[in-house]
């Protein structure tokens, strides 16, 4: 794998095709588990691990799995990794296991993971697929953790459980606040993304103009 390809995969996963903010996939855990920063980062790490492993595994088996039964096969592989994560968390980090609750088994039907399996891992080599899983997972983890920080700071007055200020507004930790903060996050990210893209386009356009005028001269 070349460095250029590596950079492209990283950029795609974290910024250009950010699963949470650009593609709006996997919305259920994002809304439900961004109540605190700790929950967000816990869920983010679980998804990074499962996505990397399942992408690598599916890519390894992509020539063996028959095309007609590929979706059930993908779900089975993902379910196996989710079960592993669930057992490990139950044994070693019971507090996180409790707070992730029903959303931990629901990673099986998370559209981010099945989407990456179907659109990337079933067509690409093992190492590339693993990196794609890693960076898409990182994109998800960054978004959900940032949302957790904002909601915890405004709703409970603390970040990662550490007291910051006395300002508290219960709205932000409630269900309505989840929709509100998520909507704002998508809007802000889209605004920044399109403005940066426009600037880049302008720059390349100016370069082309300069090049053309030089040629004429």
């Amino acid at each position, binding site marked *: 794998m070349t460095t250029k390809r590596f950079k492209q995969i990283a950029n795609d996963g974290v910024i250009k095709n950010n699963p949470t903010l650009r593609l709006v*996939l996997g919305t*259920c855990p994002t809304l439900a588990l961004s109540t605190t920063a700790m929950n967000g980062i816990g869920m983010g790490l679980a998804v990074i691990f499962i996505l990397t492993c399942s992408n690598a595994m599916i890519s390894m088996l992509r020539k063996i799995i028959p095309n007609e039964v590929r979706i059930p096969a993908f*779900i089975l592989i993902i379910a196996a990794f989710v079960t592993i994560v*669930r057992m490990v968390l139950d044994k070693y980090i019971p507090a996180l296991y409790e707070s992730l609750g029903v959303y931990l088994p629901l990673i099986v039907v998370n559209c981010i993971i099945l989407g990456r399996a179907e659109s990337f891992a079933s067509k690409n080599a093992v190492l590339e697929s693993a990196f794609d899983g890693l960076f898409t997972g990182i994109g998800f983890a960054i978004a959900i953790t940032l949302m957790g920080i904002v909601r915890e700071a405004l709703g409970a007055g603390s970040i990662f459980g550490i007291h910051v200020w006395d300002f508290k507004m219960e709205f932000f930790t409630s269900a309505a606040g989840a*929709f*509100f903060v998520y909507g704002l996050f998508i*809007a802000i990210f889209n605004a920044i993304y399109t403005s940066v893209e426009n600037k880049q386009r302008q720059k390349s356009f100016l370069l082309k103009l300069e090049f053309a005028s030089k040629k004429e001269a």
Partner: protein
Amino acid sequence: MGTFLMIIVMAVFVNNFLLVQFLGICPFLGLSKKSSSALGMGLAVTVVMTITCLITYPIYYKILVPLGLQYLEIIVFIFVIASLVQMIEKVIKKFSKPLYNAMGIYLPLITTNCAVLGVAELVIDKGQIMAILGVGSMNIGLAALYGFFAGIGFTLAMYIMSGLRDKVDYLDTSKSLKGFPMTMMTACFMAMGFYVFNLIG
């Protein structure tokens, strides 16, 4: 009777699947543009959720627990749901053409819907059931009842959302707020409305 009423109110309003528990948000955002598709999806989810509860609850307590295989629950449940959806689709196609036209096209989408797997996971978890429904004991009848009314709550929220989006999509909002962000804001106001039911609980 009290338990029945309690489960109905808790499942439909207080712990609404979409607006309080965030289960099944993808169809809520994707299929709520038209009220007909919202109702079709809601109907399909309700049917599948009820039958899923009827099947997964006994499987867990009569087969997996006696054999000590609880850790297999995710894999077993997802396969039960996948085959169930296929079966329901075949049966409906055979017996009722109008019903198939109304909800048939939404059935394949349900296999990977978190609401269905979510309800199967919730009814076997005693702690969750206590927190969500306020009842201590559970049996297969109550599980199916909960599945059905959770589906009704899902349909209700989908239908209200489709009505609101008819208007909201034509508002003159700034460019970056168009689409998903504006839908989220609409959902935010609906969730505030449903939050009031919490005061009953």
